[in-house]
């Protein structure tokens, strides 16, 4: 390495730029969080001050707890996200295994067919999806959302997983076959444990868009008992526009679960993106 690549001035400049951008990225989240713990007066008088003994107040959270059914919304979001991820991973792994392991007529064609959905957003078909859900009676059930997100996640899942499954050694699978294992056992007992890191990547990629989606909950499941957290907070905030304490608290409560998930999975997510999985 020569001098130009470890110039201390350059390095200081790099930190200044990065710190500036980090502040820009985190500032709005910070402002929302600190103000959610303040009295109404303090919110307006000193929006950038941290809550202290005098200005501390939980009134916003109390309103949210009383008025909105946030636990139900949270539970709905959890059910939808976990179930969709489960189906994306299981169905995706099965299809990816079929495409990467066996030679059969139409293999390439099937791969292309499933890859179509990577580039074409599922939202284009919303009108017909709503009609389908109405005619099957699934509208305003969580199943409608789970099915849509499963279909939305499958193309990329099949694509990524089959790339990784091609790298699993043939000897291992053939050894299993000689020992008399069925093809199903080979997939679920031998291959899946080996591609676990890529399964985690697929899961994290799908998790955030599903959790944050507003479009499909709004159209397919707007009923009170099926609202997801994203839709629930949107509706709640819309109704309480003038109650700043409640709005800020509702926003903070919507931020919290995502941040926890992010802290747990951020290494996985960043490794997934940087491993070039979305090429």
């Amino acid at each position: 390495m020569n001098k130009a690549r470890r110039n201390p001035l350059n390095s200081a400049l790099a930190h200044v730029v990065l710190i500036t951008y980090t502040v820009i990225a985190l500032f709005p989240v910070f402002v929302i969080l600190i103000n959610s713990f303040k009295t109404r007066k303090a919110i307006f008088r000193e929006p950038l001050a941290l809550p202290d003994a005098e200005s501390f107040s939980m009134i916003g959270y109390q309103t949210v707890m009383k008025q909105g059914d946030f636990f139900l919304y949270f539970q709905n979001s959890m059910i939808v996200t976990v179930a969709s991820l489960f189906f994306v991973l299981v169905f995706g792994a099965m299809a990816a295994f079929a495409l990467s392991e066996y030679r059969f007529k139409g293999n390439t064609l099937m791969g292309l067919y499933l890859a179509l959905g990577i580039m074409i957003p599922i939202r284009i078909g919303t009108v017909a999806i709503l009609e389908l859900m109405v005619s099957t009676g699934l509208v305003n059930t969580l199943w409608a959302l789970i099915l849509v997100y499963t279909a939305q996640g499958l193309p990329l899942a099949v694509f990524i997983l089959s790339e990784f499954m091609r790298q699993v050694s043939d000897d291992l699978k053939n050894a299993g076959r000689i020992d008399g294992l069925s093809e199903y056992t080979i997939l679920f007992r031998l291959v899946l444990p080996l591609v676990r890191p890529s399964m985690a990547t697929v899961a994290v990629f799908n998790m955030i868009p599903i959790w944050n989606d507003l479009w499909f909950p709004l159209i397919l499941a707007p009923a009170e008992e099926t609202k997801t957290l994203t839709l629930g907070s949107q509706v709640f905030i819309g109704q309480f526009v003038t109650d700043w304490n409640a709005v800020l608290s509702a926003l903070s409560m919507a931020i919290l679960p995502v941040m926890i998930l992010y802290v747990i999975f951020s290494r996985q997510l960043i490794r997934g993106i940087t491993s070039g999985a979305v090429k």
Partner: protein
Amino acid sequence: MQKPRFKWHILVFLAPAVLVYTAIMIFPLFNTLRLALFSEVDQVRVFVGLENFRTLFGDPNWSEQFWNALGNNFWFFFIHMLVQNPIGIALAAILSHPRLRYAALYRSAIFVPTILSFVIIGFAWKLILSPIWGIAPDMLKAIGLKSLYAPWLGKEEYALTTLALISVWQFVGIPLMLIYAALLSIPEEVLEAGEVDGITGAAAFWKIKLPLILPSIGIISILTFVGNFNAFDLIYAAQGALAGPDFSTDILGTFMYRTFFGFQLQLGDPHMGSAIATAMFGIILIGVCIYLFGIQTRLRRYQF
């Protein structure tokens, strides 16, 4: 000789994925394209051919809204390409510096807005920019630029650009990560060979790294294009289905939502909604084709 047995397991492995994908994604997609050719007369669905498209492009009420939404959508995309992707590339170039400390910390922090929902983002910025709360005017006052403040989200001439910049703020993490990955995959030998020839610092970025990451820049461009022409949530969360003020932030997603789902006094019209969805499908398809056949094939890929 025994006839090869039919391999049931292949069918079993493929069936669930193909069934769900076909039933919920492909079939509704084509059904939407088909519904665009129908209309409802006296509560009966009748085939009208291209009539809906004639209304969409010919009827001044409709065509004005459509071209407005399309134009706004292009402006939205343009801001992303002009602001989001260069910032993402610049930050990635700084982050990928081999001896930078705390790189992982910066990376995680800058990615935070990307994981938050549009609802949170939309309202958070609405509050911060609001003249009632006064955070934005106070901060501008602190640096002596108070006169620049305007209620940006409430003014027709600024609202769309402001929303586009909010969206840029949210999604800068995506190009950042993809370019970062591409930069890290450039082998050290290539950079050292450049150094031997006297190419270092900024010159190394422009002459060696940038040409090598062009395929990744192509990918982020097409991802941005598809994402922008299918956007809806941020505008809906910040400005509502009417995409105010006076439709100045209306994009194709909100236009389609209003048309097919209805709002306030207008009844929903699934057939006109399908016609707009068909137009969106066409635009996205054209974009993807330009990328696949016009750009991707021309970019030279390097294998290390």
